[in-house]
């Protein structure tokens, strides 16, 4: 799925488990301003259909590592929003 706004850089975000079900996709491409942060990404996703049920501060992973939502994103990053972990 690709979502276009008036912004100018495309970021691809992977979604899992409940978040993938909420938004109906396991990955979404979304356009945000260059240098967008994780918080900007979450804000962009929360206005999509189903995205209003995403928490305001979900876990964010960039390039397979947990990072804070204040992290600036690069379009080449592997970005993922993670529901609360529930292994074991």
């Amino acid at each position, binding site marked *: 799925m690709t979502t276009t706004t008036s912004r100018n850089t495309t970021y691809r975000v*992977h979604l*899992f*488990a*409940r978040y993938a079900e909420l938004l109906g996709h396991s990955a979404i491409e979304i356009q945000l301003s260059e240098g967008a942060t994780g918080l900007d990404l979450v804000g962009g996703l929360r206005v999509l259909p189903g995205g209003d049920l995403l928490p305001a501060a979900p876990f964010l*992973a960039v390039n*397979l*590592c*947990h990072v804070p939502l204040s992290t600036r994103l690069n379009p080449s990053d592997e970005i*993922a929003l*993670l*529901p*609360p*972990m*529930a*292994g*074991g």
Partner: protein
Amino acid sequence: MSMGHIQTEPLDAMAIRNRVASPEFGGLVVFEGVVRDHHKGKGVTRLVYTSYDAMAESMCAELVAEGEHRWPVKLAVVHRVGDIPVGETAIVVVAAAAHRGAAFEACRWLLDSVKSKVPIWKREYYSDGTTDWVDPTHG
């Protein structure tokens, strides 16, 4: 095979134990997390685990390395994903050390770390026909 690993096949705790056992270790703790038949008063028939595979594999390996740095132990953790029926094992954690104290501590730490940090999720299927994602942050 890495000492931190994700797989869809059933888990063999003895095989995982044997990967870290050594004559130098007098204390060997093996923990198995098994799918139980109830949760919060509801009957559970099965669990379906999903994971962010690449990150989960990477994090399991990192946690094993971190634990082996913090304690004088050898560690292994293997998590099963996919459809797991009641009574079958979802995770095996093994800690081997010269003495039991470090083995118990490191085993518990590794299990708790996997549960709280590794991107794995589970959907419970209940005996009343309903289903839900497990969210440890909700009660």
